[in-house]
């Protein structure tokens, strides 16, 4: 996983899913799943209203 979601911060709003250019994210009930198509572009982390996502350097 290259985008790490801080579940203690995440408000599971799905905004990150909407901006992901490759569709790598998915909102389940109260958590975000990231699949391996993630390109680490960082758009999700940028727009998160609470700052719950972080792009990890491999």
């Amino acid at each position, binding site marked *: 996983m290259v985008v790490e979601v801080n579940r203690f911060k995440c*408000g*599971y*709003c*799905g*905004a*990150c*899913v*909407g*901006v*992901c*250019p490759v*569709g790598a*994210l*998915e*909102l*389940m*009930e109260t958590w975000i799943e990231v699949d391996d198509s993630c390109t680490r572009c960082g*758009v999700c*982390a*940028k*727009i*998160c*209203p*609470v*700052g719950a996502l972080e792009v990890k350097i491999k």
Partner: protein
Amino acid sequence: MKDRYDVIVVGAGPGGSITAKTCAEGGLDVLMIEKRQEIGDPVRCAEGVGTYALKKHIAPDKRWIAAEVKGSRIIAPDGTQILMSSDSAMKDVGYTLERKVFDRVLAQNAAMAGAEVRVKTRATGLLKNNGQVSGIKAMYMGETKDIKADIVIGADGVESKVGRWAGIDTSLKPHDIETCAQFLISNIDPGEYSEFYIGEKYSAGGYVWIFPKGGYTANVGIGILGSKSGKIRALSLLHDFIETHIPHGKILEMVVGGVPVSGPIERTIADGLMLVGDAARQSDPLTGGGITNAMDAGQIAGEVCIKAKEKGDYSVKTLMEYEDRWRATIGKEISRSLKVKNLLIKLTDEQFNQLAHSLDGIDASTMELPKMLAVLSRKNPKLLWELRSLY
């Protein structure tokens, strides 16, 4: 849950429920699925809605009206206030909804009309037959099942996947989304008007809102343009606003969310598929409001489904009517709002103040937004040159 329906609606928000209800009333066999356990909860919305647009779809009901508002008050960065109302008689022009109740009532209305509703059921992909969408893969309690349908409606919100699966790129760029945070605040007397605080002082490319929620409560929230988010966050700006403007307020609830402000996307249909509401990016780019647009679109989509069934053709040829009709109605306002938004996000706080002052001596209290923008562009031709042909 059966193996086959005429129509499958993915997502039980206002857009999905109106589509499902319209289809069911037209005699179609409808399944509406909602991935959450509870319809309408958690809320991701400021819950403000215009009564006129809403009443086209449902009779007002105390169960889901949290408060009635008489109009809007816009607050410029220097504190100048502009009072607006869309009804000269000053009757109630807006509601703050209780979405948790509202959404469930709409879903129930679809169910009462004959639609089957399933919660905690998610679409994980589309079935296709010769390139035409022919159903969904649905997961319930960890088990996946193929469900066939003549047409699938993607009403799956800002995080929509249904369109992408059908080859429609609905991904939003950072400048195409407002990233929002909101608290339900108690120990506050918000009065009878919805308030909008505009300018960079409050929000970069967005605004702060205070929507009366009944009793001594209000939805207090902020949206900032996604392209301005990063170092600053909607949530921390909201904390700052509460601390400085409503220090005595108590937080009863927290809401976060993203609102599409891209304006109309290129395509909202495919063979055997239509997108409705936030999934189709039909929220208003200027106000962020999306409820009644989604309901209007849902109504049209439902009517087109009924025609498609009669013709026995669910290809884009038949579905083009949906595309044409929503663009000719709500689409026009959405496009206009996009142009205004693109202009306003470039203004400085000083320019916002200047606009507010240009209304000195003008009674705006009987104006709705288009009228006010028309007056503003006449009074400020240089600043709002790009608006002159719009209003």
